[in-house]
């Protein structure tokens, strides 16, 4: 299976029920807020980012990916006590890049999904640190290995979750 998509064919734009667009991100946000209570410090994942990457990859629309990333990030920020917009910026960029890459690669490939989620998770963490420390000048301590753990967790979750979400798409 080729890793890169065929430029000559039109990339397939997947469609989902309206409820899926509403409930899946909401479920991701709720679980992201609830699971750390169960798992404690071992909650090394970012479900809103995984869902953002999934929809951005499959919709292949940078604008939609951007908007979805911004909405998910702002929502996450609103639940925390940090400034609203830090995660928003990070996930906006992640959504845009995921959608832009989704036009050019085969998003069905599990390796692509795993690597993309890993890299975008690291990028998202990096943007959070960059915005907090350098753009806003806040005293935010950061440990690089927790970002690695989160990126690995996101990749593994994506490998399991993406096929499940694929079942929601509308097939013509």
């Amino acid at each position, binding site marked *: 299976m080729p890793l890169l998509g065929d430029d000559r064919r039109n990339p397939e734009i997947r469609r989902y029920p309206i409820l899926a667009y509403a409930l899946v991100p909401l*479920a991701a946000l709720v679980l992201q*807020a*609830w699971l750390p209570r169960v798992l*404690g410090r071992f909650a090394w994942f970012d479900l809103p980012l995984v869902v953002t990457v999934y929809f951005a990859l499959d919709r292949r629309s940078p604008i939609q990916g*951007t908007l979805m990333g911004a909405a998910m990030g702002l929502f996450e920020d609103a639940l925390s*006590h940090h400034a609203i917009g830090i995660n928003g910026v990070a996930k906006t960029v992640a959504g845009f890049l995921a959608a832009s890459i989704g036009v050019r690669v085969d998003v069905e490939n599990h390796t692509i999904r795993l690597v993309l989620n890993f890299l975008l998770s690291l990028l998202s963490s990096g943007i959070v640190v960059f915005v907090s420390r350098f753009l806003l000048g806040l005293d935010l301590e950061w440990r690089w290995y927790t970002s690695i753990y989160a990126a690995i967790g996101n990749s593994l979750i994506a490998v399991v979750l993406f096929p499940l979400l694929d079942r929601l798409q509308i097939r013509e």
Partner: protein
Amino acid sequence: MESFFVRYRNLVVLLAILLAQIIGLAVQVRRTSEGRSTLDPSDGPGVRLIRLWAQGVVTPPEMIIHASKTGSRGLWQNYLDLRSVRQQNQELQKTIDRLRLEQAALLEDARQGQRLQALANFQQKYIYQTVAAQAIGSSGSEQSHVFYIDKGSAEGLNRDDAVITADGIVGKVRDVFPHTAQVLAVNDQTSGAGVILETTRTRGILRGNAAGQLEIVDILADKRIQKGEIVLTAGGDQIFPRGLPVGVVENVVPDPERDSFIDVIVTPAAHLDRLDEVLVVTSTQPRFSPEQQQDLATSEALKGSEAAAIKEQKKASEIMAERLPGLVDPNLPPDQQPLHDSSNPTPVAHPPQALHPDRFTPGNAPDAASEATPEALPHAKAPAVPDSVTQPKPKTPVVKPSGTPSTTVGKPTSKPAQPKQTGPQTGKPPTNQPQKAQPGGNT
């Protein structure tokens, strides 16, 4: 121009959204007097509205999950209990070993009950007013150690209320919504609490580090601080009451930024990662138990009765002071003096009338010249009155109208049992014996 926006609309949208968010971030950050950037602790109206919306969207599903988890756990436990009871009934009939299994199961339940009972007892003994709450969700971010509880302003919670458990402090209420509240845990990097080490009495500021550990900062290097020392709240931060357990010293490391300072890593007393039930200190006004309140009321009543008794005594003494000068009124004739009043229960004794006038009788006193002559002396030596009159008589009980036996000294009476008449009498001065007041008389 139009073609530029059409061609690069993806980038334009991306940049517009990023720019809007960065402007929003810049509004929320302010610069302190020390030149450091920090977040405004009190959110602006717009930011608070966004948080309220987000919290309003996420909290109901979280509450449903929490309730369903509790319900399903109860159902599952009931099912398991039924199964285990059935099995135990069969096994108890066979071997005594099964009894031990049942005992172990009951012991586990008892431990769970003891844990809940300990929390309830702590709340009852705690002198401040508290509200019990359940933790229902978290921020979901590793950098933000906040969690949500199922009580809000409707239950009396306020911003900056301390959140504790029976084990130790947990955090403080950061934001309050109608039926939920956001709690900033003590292990967050932005939290702060004044603490004191129990043995060395060293004070410091407790905060969280990047790993989610508790650490006490701003402490000068001190070799006396040892592992295992207990850390308590100092009470100076106006949030946590003084003396609550915080944790124990886990490690002492040098401050990487300042040479002479150290950081004390603290193991929290409360299980910050697995919080279920917490107590929110809603008021630092003392809350007393019913027994304590009864003791206080009794003490107040006693104090009031003592004051009333003192006031009554003062009033009585004032009345006496007013009346004493009036016992003998110089403007009234003797027979109209207040003491002549037959209603006076303590009549004044008068000397008896002499049978024969003598030189002691008023008006018969000899002059000084006759008293000085020797002839006058034998006359003077003659007895003036019979002994039976002048000599005091033995005390004779007198029955008063009230029936109370009394004693008096004076002229013998032929009817000692008769009620004592008022008027001139012999004998001793008025006694302090209680006297029954005569109707219409002065007391």
